[in-house]
């Protein structure tokens, strides 16, 4: 049932849908956007900032327009997924993300983040340079069950394999309570290789959960 699905690279007119994808992927099976709690901003503020960062066109991190593939059906977006090569230009995605957020948020938001970063780090995994990193999958409910997730994962892998033939590992980090996404990634060929569970109760406020898994897939 995937004959009417087109998979293509994201373009600027997809930014609103990509922002929606990042928001929905962040919410997972809860209703929390970690960026909002960590930086003390509203969902609307986050959407505005995410759109501005995507519009900057910087590659190889979570808010890179060119890291996203879009699934389209009948001219409508039917899914999105992003992936990049960690450290491709000699700069980590973490540094790029913080450079972006500091450029578009207020100083107080960065100070707020710093106060909570230690808690967030309890369940964070370092992204290893030279590996492929998947982030922010979203398929609207009306398009689920049509194999779109697998198609996006495959298209992203193929795209990066052409650019970086030596890359042989892909990773994704998921909150453990997001069982729908976790099971979907098992179907896409990922396996859990590590898990971190934090003890600070504030983790439930920041992420709607306190366990994160690291999943790996050979390319």
């Amino acid at each position, binding site marked *: 049932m995937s004959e009417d699905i087109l998979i293509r690279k994201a373009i600027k007119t997809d930014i609103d849908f990509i922002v929606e994808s990042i928001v929905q992927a962040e919410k997972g099976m809860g209703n929390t956007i970690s960026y909002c709690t960590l930086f003390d901003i509203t969902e609307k503020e986050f959407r505005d900032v995410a759109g501005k960062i995507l519009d*900057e066109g*910087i590659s190889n991190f979570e808010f890179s327009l060119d890291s996203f593939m879009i699934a389209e059906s009948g001219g409508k977006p039917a899914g999105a997924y992003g992936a990049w090569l960690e450290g491709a230009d000699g*700069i980590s995605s973490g*540094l790029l*993300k*913080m450079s*972006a957020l*500091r*450029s578009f948020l207020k100083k107080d938001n*960065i100070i707020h983040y710093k106060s909570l970063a230690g808690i967030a780090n309890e369940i964070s995994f370092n992204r290893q340079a030279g590996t492929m990193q998947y982030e922010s999958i979203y398929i609207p409910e009306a398009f689920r069950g049509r194999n779109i997730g697998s198609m996006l994962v495959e298209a992203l892998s193929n795209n990066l394999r052409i650019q970086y033939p030596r890359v042989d590992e892909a990773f994704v980090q998921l909150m453990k309570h997001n069982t729908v996404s976790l099971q979907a990634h098992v179907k896409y060929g990922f396996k859990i290789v590590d898990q971190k569970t934090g003890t600070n109760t504030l983790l439930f406020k920041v992420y709607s959960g306190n366990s994160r898994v690291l999943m790996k897939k050979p390319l």
Partner: protein
Amino acid sequence: MATTLEIINEVFSNLLNKPDLKLTLTDSPDSVTGWDSLTHPELISGIEEKLDIEFSFKELASIKDIAYLIELTNSKLNTLK
């Protein structure tokens, strides 16, 4: 008059609490303990405030080591002259 490297070294030294820090052109977040995604915004703000300049996100996205940071800082200072 202090060089750009000396000014950046002073900012890093103060904010990372490393009085003996001696940055070199090839230093990067990989080689300087404490220079990470958490401290990066502060370090950049420290340089901006010290020299009364402002970096855009696009400019920051090119900083992979101290040499790049010096080059970018100098280009900002030159446009002020």
